[in-house]
């Protein structure tokens, strides 16, 4: 069954999938990788973003990804608020390890149940001109439904990378992950910096939700499919490494796609997580971790 044509298609499909995985994982890379906050509720915010995109699409015909972009400030504010509650209730008291985890688990279930109550449990999808269409480039088929999320995922990665490396607040976020006392001595408030970073993480989650509903239908419980995947990508890429998150996403995406195309899709997840285990055995800090 092997052909170069199939191989090329599988690699391209994997890269497209990887771009989407990167978008979903960026927020975790920021909150878990840099802030050391185990935000298990991250995929729930992804689904929340997907439902916002669905609502605007079904009610006003607004493009789902445009909706995702327009709503990022709101989700940023929500994220900042969540972090403030988390900080004052757990982190400040030094009880963030277990109780904080329970807090985010609770938040995940609250979001899930709230979505069930509001929207019911029917499958929700969006309509957009690019869904269901594809182009053929020299025998390689590219579905717009995957191309657009991939492009947005790459743009999000680039934007976050530039923010963290070129701006004052970005550098402060990097600093807070390394030495909070030193950061304080430089006159920056670590809690404020972490609030900003957490808000950005949740905003990224909501935008990736708009990408998700472009690719496949969602129900309130879809978040559970992504918990393992996003944390695996973050760990494989190296905690706190934005570039590493992108590389890890593409590795997993290409591995899944190659397995599905050439050897049988039932092995795709096993191989992806096998890569994670192998990489961690060789480099415990992840591919680009310090």
């Amino acid at each position, binding site marked *: *069954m092997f*052909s170069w044509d*199939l191989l090329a*298609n*599988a690699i391209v*499909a*994997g890269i*497209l*999938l990887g771009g*989407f995985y990167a978008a979903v994982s960026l927020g975790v890379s920021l909150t878990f990788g840099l802030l050391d906050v185990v935000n298990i509720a991250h995929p729930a915010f992804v689904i929340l973003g997907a439902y916002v995109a669905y609502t605007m699409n079904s009610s006003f015909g607004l493009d789902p990804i445009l909706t995702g972009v327009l709503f990022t400030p709101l989700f940023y504010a929500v994220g900042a608020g969540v972090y403030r509650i988390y900080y004052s209730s757990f982190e400040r008291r030094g009880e963030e390890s277990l109780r904080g985890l329970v807090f985010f688990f609770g938040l995940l279930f609250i979001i*899930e*149940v709230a979505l*069930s109550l*509001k*929207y*019911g*449990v*029917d*499958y*929700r*999808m969006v*309509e957009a001109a690019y*869904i*269901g*269409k*594809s182009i053929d480039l020299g025998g390689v*088929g590219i*579905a717009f*439904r*995957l191309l657009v999320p991939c492009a947005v995922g790459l743009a999000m990665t680039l934007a976050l990378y530039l923010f963290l490396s070129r701006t004052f607040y970005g550098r402060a976020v990097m600093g807070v992950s390394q030495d909070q006392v030193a950061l304080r001595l430089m006159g920056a408030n670590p809690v404020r910096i972490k609030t900003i970073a957490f808000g950005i993480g949740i905003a990224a989650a909501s935008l990736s939700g708009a990408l998700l509903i472009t*690719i*496949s*239908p969602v*129900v*309130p*419980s*879809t978040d559970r*499919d992504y918990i393992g*995947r996003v944390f695996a990508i973050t760990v494989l890429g190296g905690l706190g490494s934005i570039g590493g998150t992108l590389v890890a996403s593409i590795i997993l*995406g290409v591995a*899944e*796609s*190659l397995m*599905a*195309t*050439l050897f*049988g*899709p*039932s092995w*795709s*997840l096993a191989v992806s997580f096998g890569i994670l285990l192998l990489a961690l055995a060789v480099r415990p800090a992840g591919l680009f971790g310090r």
Partner: protein
Amino acid sequence: MNTLRIGRLVVGALVCVVVGAVVLAGAGVFVARAADPIKIGLGMALTGGLSANGKPALMAMQIWKDDVNKKGGLLGRPVELIAYDDQTNAATVPGIYTKLLEVDKVHFVVSGYGTNLIAPLMPIAMERKLTIMGILGLANNEKYKYPNYFQIQPSGPDPEANWATGFFELAARQNPKPQTIALVGADAEYPRHAIAGARELVKKFGFKNVYDKSYPPSTVDYTPIARAIKAVNPDIVFVASYPPDSVGMVRAAAEVGLQPKIFGGGMVGLQFTTVMTSLGPMLNGIVNYDFWAPEKTMMFPGIQEFFTEYQKRAKEAGVDTLGYYLPPYAYSAIQILGLAIEGSKSLDQQKVADYIRSNEFSTIVGKVRFGANGEWAKSRVLQVQYQGVKGTDVEQFRGPGKKVVLYPDEFKSGNIIYPYSAAQK
């Protein structure tokens, strides 16, 4: 003398009062017992992966309860439905049914929705010798052979094979006859059974199997799978999938240009309103299993009244708007239980089970008779083809012509458009 007569009168009056009081009290007790509800309990997927079907199923049963209570209940007693959320988690099932039986003291139980949620109920039902109505489980009783299990899905006496028989018969009837087939399904309970049955049918009908793979249910992108199938160029593609993968496969097939002569088979989800309205014309040509379609051949007594009430409630509850797939069958399952209680004039599990086993029932999904293994005595899994779907307007799916019944012949409402590509023009 007068004093003695007065005394006797007083004693007589007292006796009358006491006897009267006892009689009245007895009557009062009798009245209270007659008003005690008959309780029917169930766990249902109200959250989690199967809740998109679980909620409408429960709603359908609540409509039955209201219908029955309006007519005076069962055996002159009102009916009460007690339902708990099983969260689409099989591990919750034993606890839920133990509570229903031990704490709520229900008289009868009905299963939750789907094969995975029925499986953990089977040992409990067998141990306690319960009569159990199953809601759309595939082949749950094949190993147990429990005589008091009855399953409303019209799979037929050999559920695995009967499930896809119509699809394969239709394929074999086409001219030129297709030769090669690809089988693909999710790594999950239902698709495994469906694919196992399909493999037997591949041998029976003499097709050549050129692709036989499964995929993890959490797969995000289905284009690599569609492309791999396209590479082996099968005449038939049989897919056994759950709703998200069904959508993924249909979209991926359209995107990579996968165009076998017949495409479909066992895709769960294409029957749901939101999926139909989202996929729109991409559905055209797909031949898939179904249980009901708004065709003239499927208009059984009471079904239109049911849909009128269901669709009114569904709009408020945010569940499947049309409800053509599971709800009428959930209603019928509990309708049969009610008819059996009335028919046997008993709340005894064994008597009710015996009555169900030995009678035919007129339900809103037509006449139902169960076979020895608790499945329908005769399979009635429909094969429908989506034809002439334009745009994404829901109204087009309310009337006939969009989901044409091709199989079985007695319910046939139109002819297949063959090959698949011809229906997409």
